């Protein structure tokens, strides 16, 4: 059990997908303007990421490896991810039209969120077991959500600032993200996977 907890903590904090691995920056910058939206995006991505890492693990171990067609990995993983995203989109659209509208183009773009594919591939690379993959995916996704929400809070505060014209908008957001990444370096060296 503590192994899974460590995986969860490690992927969420120490090897945070966004701030340490620099994956999934597109939604990180794109939908972090508002807290509610960021939370919605985080949860949607959590769902996709967890499901996709499990499904891709199954695909890898049950299909690709036995048939010895691992060269098809990226292609088939993307197929799986795209399907999961489509599914998520339907669910979100049905359950929360407002969130659907707010997430806009970024919802289908989860497909191309490199964090999703990245985590699925890392799972294979590190030879994770089924449960490890599950927690690896979930931890990464939770880390993504955590950072999204933190950053959205920061940006809501930034929106009330008198940032110099030169830095207003995206530049200050990038600076803030960089500084947040600096802060996350404090977690480095924690003995987790």
């Amino acid at each position, binding site marked *: 059990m503590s192994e899974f907890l460590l995986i969860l903590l490690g992927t969420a904090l120490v090897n945070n997908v966004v701030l340490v691995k620099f994956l999934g920056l597109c939604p990180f910058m794109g939908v972090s303007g508002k807290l509610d939206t960021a939370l919605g995006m985080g949860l949607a991505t959590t769902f996709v990421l967890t499901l996709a890492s499990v499904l891709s693990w199954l695909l890898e171990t049950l299909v690709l490896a036995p048939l010895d067609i691992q060269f098809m990995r990226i292609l088939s993983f993307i197929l799986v991810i795209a399907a999961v995203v489509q599914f998520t989109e339907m669910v979100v659209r049905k359950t929360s039209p407002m969130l659907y509208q707010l997430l806009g183009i970024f919802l289908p773009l989860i497909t191309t969120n490199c964090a999703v594919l990245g985590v699925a591939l890392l799972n294979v690379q590190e030879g994770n077991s089924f449960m490890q993959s599950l927690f690896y995916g979930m931890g990464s996704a939770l880390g993504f959500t955590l950072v999204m*929400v*933190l950053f959205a809070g920061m940006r809501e*505060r930034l929106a009330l600032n008198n*940032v110099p014209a030169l830095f207003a908008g995206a530049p200050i957001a990038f600076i803030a993200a960089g500084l947040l990444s600096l802060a996350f370096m404090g977690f480095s060296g924690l003995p987790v996977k």
Partner: protein
Amino acid sequence: MNNAGPLASPHTRQSSSVSAIMLQVWLALLPASLFGVWLYGWPALNLLLITTAAALAAEALGQRLAGRPIMPSLKDGSALLTGWILAMTLPPWAPWWVAVIGALFAIIIGKQVFGGLGQNLFNPAMLARVALLIAFPLELTTWVAPQPLFSANAPGFIDSLHITFVGVAPLVGGVDAISGATVLDGIKTELARGAELGVVLPDYYRAGDAMLGQMGGSLGETSALLLLLGGLYLIWRGHITWQIPAALLGTVALLATGFHLYDPLRFAHAGVHLLSGGLMLAAFFIATDPVGSPASRRGQLIFAAGIGALVYIIRTWGGFPEGVAFAVLLMNAATPLIDHYVRPRVYGRDPHGKPLDYQRGRFARRLKKQQGGE
């Protein structure tokens, strides 16, 4: 009376100003910093002055580039305080360029680009501290053993200029003679070597010295006692709230005691954690910086407890011997969230913001009592 528009009430004001508050904080810091200067000699004074001057220069530059007035922002004392606190967290014999780069980073990146005073998300001094630690790990971890001013081994004033502007190495006696490790450094190294804590701890930690600050460490971080006094003064004058220091120190003490009881050989006791490193300075002077901390008292408790927990985690399991700066930055980042979710209860509303319901709860009981006419 410069605006011609209608004048809103109130038409009177308590006499206080931002600069007065900054001055008070600076005064409270003074004993600990003077002690640091005495303990580590002239190079420490150089460092303090250079950092502060660089911070003021950076502030002026930033204000000018942003097209904002320069003098008022220099006078408010915030840049001075940022520079001062940064210097207090640096190794006392750090070279001049470390001080200057740190001050520039703190003021320009940490504060000015966010819009100046009150607008920064992160504590500027801690940002600079972390940035320096990552960029110049060697300079930032070269500690000196205490050599009080006018004592036998202490460098003279001229030597101090050499130390600050050229470097330590060519001095008589060499590096070894002056190097000293901080308590936390020592413990981390020894534990990594597989030593037992109970055996090695007395080599690094003596409670009395730690209390007074007679040990290696950052310029102004060592004297827990003087920092505590300064902090209590600020609480007494109402410039900081008791919630942040209490929750911060309390969390660290609680975690340290708990783990120490669990395994005394691997985990240092609470005294070590409280009296060493930058914890005292952070608890009273850095985490209490109002700009990066939550507005509500309950929020402040959460914020400070978060810092405490992170400090303990990073110190105990992390890659760095000291985690105060990281912990403060991480909780700075969480502050907008805390402010969003933790707010004081509004008059006439329940904690969720709904109008009070007099059907149940303590208000219903009070109403019944009043209706009874007491």
